């Protein structure tokens, strides 16, 4: 069950759409934030009820995007490193390895203290500032190993 605040927010965002179903992305985002970074079965069932959709349709919408973590809990900080072409050419591969070493986890894993989850994603549309990554809702751009060390230190 969503909190009253979330319910209220959902009703607000739904006003933007002529058709409730179209609001599914926004509502999934709210639900994911409520759950602390991921989505579970019950969330999708409730969204389906609210929007008058089939559960599998909500599931399919969520599963299409890497930004939604379906039944996959993530740490407090979800680090999504771009590994598409521009970032890759500018060294994303090394940065990923660097972070794996620093956090002592592999891509796709979460640190034992549940603080960091490291994943790789496709182009985040910020090629001009490659290599880059996203942590929760924020972009970190023109990355270097040193910059990353600082960012991680600040978050720890």
């Amino acid at each position, binding site marked *: 069950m969503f909190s009253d605040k979330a319910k209220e927010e959902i009703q607000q965002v739904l006003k933007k759409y002529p058709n409730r179903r179209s609001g599914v992305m926004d509502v999934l985002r709210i639900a994911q934030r409520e759950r602390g970074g991921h989505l579970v*079965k019950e969330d999708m069932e409730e969204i389906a009820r609210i929007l008058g959709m089939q559960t599998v*349709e909500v599931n*399919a919408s969520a599963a299409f995007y890497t930004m939604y973590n379906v039944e996959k809990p993530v740490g407090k900080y979800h680090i999504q490193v771009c590994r598409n072409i521009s970032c890759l050419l500018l060294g994303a591969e090394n940065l990923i390895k660097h972070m794996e070493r620093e956090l002592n986890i592999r891509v796709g894993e979460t640190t034992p203290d549940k603080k960091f989850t490291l994943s790789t994603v496709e182009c985040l549309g910020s090629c001009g500032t490659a290599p880059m990554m996203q942590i929760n809702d924020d972009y970190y751009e023109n990355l270097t190993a040193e910059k990353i060390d600082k960012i991680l230190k600040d978050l720890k």
Partner: protein
Amino acid sequence: MSTVKINGKEVTVKDGTLILDAARDAGFEIPTFCYQADLMGVGSCRMCLVEIEGQKKLQPSCITPVLHGMSIHTETPTVMSARASMLEFLLANHALDCPVCDKGGECELQDMVYKYGPHKGRHAEPKFKFQEKDYVLSPVIIKNSNRCVQCMKCVRVCGEVVGANVLGALGRGDHQEETSFLRSFLDCDQDGNCIEVCPVGCFMRLPYRYKTRPWDLKGKDTVCPYCATGCRMVIEERDGIVIRAKAQLGVGLNSETLCARGRFGFDFINSPERLTKPLVKRFGTLEPASWEEALGVIKDNFIAAGKNIGGIASARLTDEELYLFQKLFRSMLGSPNIDSSARWAPEAVEGFIKATGMDEGGASAFDCMESDTVLITGTHLSDENPVTDYIVRRISAGRAMNLVIASPRAMKLDSSASQIVRHNAAAEGHLLDAVTLSVYGGNVDKLRDVPGINRIKDARQDDLAGKAGCSADDIKAIARKLTGEGSVGLFAGTEFLRYPGSIPGLALLKNALKALGKKVTIIPVLDRANQRGAWEMGVHPGFGPGYSPVKERGMGCADMLEAASSGELQALYVVQSDIVAMHPDENFVRGALSGLKFLVVQDCFMSETARLANVVLPASSFAEKDGILTNQEGRAQIIRKLLPPPVKAKRDIDIIRAVGETFDRSFGPKNPVLVLDEIRKEVGMYGEVSLAFNNKRNVDNKLDLKEALVKPAGLAEGLNASGLETKLEPKTDEHPFLLATGNHLFHSGRLSRKSPTLIGLLKNAIVEISAEDASALGLMNGDKVRIKGRYYEAYATLHTRSGSKGGVAFIAENYDDVPVNRFFRRGEGVPRVSITKA
């Protein structure tokens, strides 16, 4: 029209024709995965790419319409290499486990790679696997996603055709998996249409798993034996066991679709409970006997009964069998007492035939759906006739039209409707009267002379609407749609037969619309495969073959039972009809049958009725005979024999003839083909019915084989539709729910109870009420409840449906654990019941 060149060949086709269709019609083959005629095009698999002169990139022919003057090439080296590349990509992750795949041998991917493929792949990376093991998705579906070609046909058929919408595509790219919500167990229609459309071995039949290779199967064309939609299918056997029923793309009105009953319900054929030898009652017990002995006993007793004899034949028999059955009674035994239904009153049948114009010949459901406004009434179409529901859903989505659904119970098809009307149970007549009155209000001059209009013209709209349980606005809205621009189509179902008082309302509305100059197409919606055939062959006390008048009116089922209890009727011959289970008021039936001197039951199973018989004859299923079934639209379609009847059982036509021959050696004709010849000669409507045109494959999208529709009868003045009324028990606080019945989505009569797979889908009785009624009673979906009427009480699982009209409890007629006919009492109205937590 557009003229285009395909591989240099000039063809002229309708504007907007897809390149794919144009090319196929011109005789060029183009491979496809994601294209399917009755689904919306998605153009995702890129197998169908073609080259168009002047366009640099190849174009998907399945979603690209022709343009006048186009020059298209379907077999250039570029096209061929594109096909090979697409296949190479599809195989990049494909499991390639053909040796253990159920689809091996009839897999479209296998065929395509064989024909167009690169026979070597260059992908060296490890294959992506969705899962290690196949997973069970439902009692009839097992899934292996590692073989998927991502054509999305399963998802599309489930949403666009079935309307269940329980499948989706999870993930994307090569990680996209077509499956259920979080791969959970499916609580769906279980029709397996996802299996049928899947080109590879992803969606598979669970009951068929690892049973055979397709090339070891022998198949025959047939028609589904359950409802009267009349779906064409092929049943296949191996070593004498039928193991699969499948629909075929482009064949029959159903094309590739079937419902759960049709696709999985055939296995009653193999049941170990099948009757295999004649039984004769000796000192109170039925014991095996020879055919000679059984027929001898029948002859002696029939002679003793003289004219005090009657016959009831199932509406699942073939036209030939039914014709011979009525001939046996009318011309050999000299009795007019025959009927083909244990449920419907003869006058109701006659009224319904007249109201729906069945005597005016066949009418196609596709034509009905071409109407500008279609009204569906008196049927829970989604559950009773699922494939008719698919046709309505598919066509109504593709064109601008009004679709009005009037039903007390909510149904899946509601989501396609432009207007939904919830009326009181058993109030179809009041609803239609109210609509007609509203139509009359605006057209008094034109409708003054419509027969029957006097019955309602002075009624008060509020009264009628109140009795129907709907608002005056609803009524007005329907009337506006029906009288608006264009033609009208009506689907009218078995509720009219169940509540005969509604029939005059249907007839009047039809007449009024016709008087306004409307084209009205009516499709009767029936629940037994050959109910229409049974009537058209004259198995009815009030008319003969082709609805011809009869010299002497006979007794219908109810009257025969009455006469049996009073000792007037002495012998009864029942063929594949379970009267004890079907006739309202089981106790009355049992009492009546015990009053008979002689009861002979011919059936595939030891039915409740057969247990009471003096002689039981082992009969045949649809898989064991040749013949014709006439569906609800009046389409005469062929079934072909796949297997011999088990052990000493015989084809029904041979048994009926053998009974006749005990009186006169010349009774016949002697085989189904000759009987059909006689039908063609004697029954005008069937004059042009042919064995030839039925099994041909139609071109995609042209499923409406009009030649198969029967012709007008032209002599039905004798139909007696008087005295039609619906009796309901008065409503009391003690019994607040009116008891409605019909068929469950997974069952049809009692025959489906012998199918292990259908029993696996639903075994024990459920009672359905509206979600609102349930919450008012503090009951929840899935609760065990007690259903109590004045004469019977039973326990069942509660099923709630939101959006249904209150005050109705629905129990299907299919359950042996809760025989719904026990709630009924002869001579009293439709019962009311209470529902409480058990």
